[in-house]
């Protein structure tokens, strides 16, 4: 056992429970370091929760070997293991309100709740889900396993449901609670949010229901999702026959985000391959200006061409909705110098990956360097995960990143903290 210096033995606060935050928590816990893992949503898992097949291995990154051979079953033991670990104090539905104190001894005010549904009691019987739209299941994979209650959708019936819940898990009068914790280190693992391009008139997102983002497509492709993996038009539920994707929406665009979001080419082609190979007969076209499937991911590009995914080098001229729900899309083909007209059912935008909403406040409070809104390390060349004195960063909080990269960075943070405590 490592001798722990008293002044450095405080717990570590991890903000964000996506793959990066979870990795840091579980590996610190394994080294007997206490962590407080704060997640603003009611479930842990972050953006990777609903990814269906993940590159580079095409399965759920966290599944243990055994479950790889049970297609469609992605019970993530990894996630459920987080709930019972004595060294991890998991706080879902929790926000960081204030950070004061000094490096090595931060005082952090946390606000939790309101916890309308007690996750320790909810047995996911589904009674409330059937009775009112105010109750929903974020994902069958959610951890802790509990339904979600949205008070803004409350109807008359919710009071009855509260009484009828077999385990008395529901408390409609729940209030939020505040607590101050003292921690020695802070790890920022707040990840990214996918851009919703409502301001880009040319694509009609938010205006035409059959225009969606890649994350929305991932949710649709997920066999555990609402449509059970079937591709359907959001407008009328009709089966999709033709898909078009367009790359670099809001990325590499100085009017929005000047950086390349790095992984959207890879996940777009991952999705295109799934559609063409596993959803028989659906035609898929990808409109791009550059395809950037960096290093080993080039194979997704090659596979896409072999599978019959069509590529058009150019940009979208216009999108026009038809009364039957389909969309007419005219694309300028810059290689042919001609305009191509398509009729499609689902238009998928590969939108930018942007910093999480509260990141700016956190960065300002902690006085961190930033780059395009993401956390920038103090010394990019030597210590890419150190953001400040006793402050670390990993995963997509530093900029668009894939899962393996986020995990590697989380491990680097863990080894930094362990070194500091020897």
């Amino acid at each position: 056992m490592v001798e722990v210096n008293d002044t450095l033995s405080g717990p570590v606060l991890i903000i964000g429970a996506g793959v990066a935050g979870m990795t840091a928590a579980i590996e610190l816990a394994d080294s007997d370091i206490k962590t407080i893992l704060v997640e603003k949503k009611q479930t842990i898992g972050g953006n990777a929760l609903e990814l269906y097949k993940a590159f580079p291995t095409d399965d759920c990154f966290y599944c243990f070997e055994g479950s790889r051979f049970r297609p469609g079953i992605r019970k993530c033991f990894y996630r459920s293991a987080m709930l019972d670990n004595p060294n991890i104090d998991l706080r879902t539905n929790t926000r960081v309100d204030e950070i004061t104190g000094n490096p090595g001894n931060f005082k952090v005010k946390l606000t939790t709740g309101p916890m309308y549904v007690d996750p320790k009691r909810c047995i996911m019987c589904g009674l409330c889900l059937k009775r009112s739209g105010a109750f929903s299941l974020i994902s069958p994979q959610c951890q802790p396993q509990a339904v979600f209650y949205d008070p803004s959708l409350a109807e008359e019936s919710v009071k009855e449901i509260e009484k009828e819940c077999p385990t008395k898990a529901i408390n409609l009068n729940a209030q939020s609670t505040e607590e101050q914790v003292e921690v020695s280190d802070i790890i920022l693992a707040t990840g990214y949010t996918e851009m919703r391009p409502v301001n880009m008139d040319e694509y009609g997102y938010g205006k035409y229901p059959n225009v969606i983002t890649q994350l929305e497509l991932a949710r649709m492709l997920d066999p555990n999702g609402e449509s059970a993996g079937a591709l359907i038009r959001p407008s009328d539920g009709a089966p999709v026959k033709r898909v078009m994707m367009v790359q670099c929406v809001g990325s590499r665009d100085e009017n929005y985000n000047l950086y390349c979001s790095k992984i959207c080419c890879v996940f777009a082609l991952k999705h295109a391959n799934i559609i063409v190979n596993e959803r028989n007969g659906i035609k898929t076209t990808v409109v791009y200006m550059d395809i950037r499937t960096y290093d080993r991911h080039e194979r997704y590009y090659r596979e896409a061409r072999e599978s019959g995914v069509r590529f058009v080098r150019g940009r979208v001229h216009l999108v026009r909705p038809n009364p039957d729900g389909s969309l007419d899309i005219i694309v300028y083909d810059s290689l042919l110098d001609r305009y191509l007209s398509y009729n499609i059912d689902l238009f998928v935008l590969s939108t930018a990956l942007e910093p999480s909403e509260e990141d700016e406040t956190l960065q300002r409070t902690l006085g961190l360097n930033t780059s395009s809104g993401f956390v920038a390390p103090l010394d990019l060349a030597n210590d890419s995960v150190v953001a400040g004195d006793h402050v670390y960063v990993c995963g997509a909080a530093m900029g668009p990143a894939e899962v393996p990269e986020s995990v590697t960075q989380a491990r680097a943070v863990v080894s930094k903290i362990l070194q500091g405590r020897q």
Partner: protein
Amino acid sequence: MAETKESAEPPTILVDPIDMSKLDQSFCNEIKSMPYGEELVACFACTTCTAACPIANQWDYKPHQLIRMIILGMREEVLSSKEIWECLTCFQCQERCPQKVRVTDIFFDCKNLAAEEGKVPNSIVALGKLLLETGQLYEVTEDWQREDLDLEPEVPGLATEPLKEILKTTRTGRLVGSDE
């Protein structure tokens, strides 16, 4: 039938390349130094400008190609192109350009340069003349034009004389006048 050794061999170059040494290498910098031309070289050839353009369909040189030609130094071809004059100045290319290249403004720069060199199409010169002579681009020529809109026959308070005076001293005045 003098057979030379050379002619028996296939020509080594089948393509018809642009001789780069003949292009005007300073043209790019010239445009860059003009108003709103700074971002010219930021262009990464995505062709969004052409995709956005409502009229490029009818053009031999598309907006992105004109930008490319400027960067390469194809001064002559750009300044004598019909496209820069047919541009509707709708600014859609410029609005959507992800690299903030001010495409429409750059075409204005090109028009200004072309005008300085007397390369203004006749139709445009005619418009300039009309403006100079009448102080208006659109004259009411038929009674029904205003009647149909329930307007009085004469435009109230229309005073074109002062405008004509001013126009004489402008570049338009100079360019159109020198043509006479």
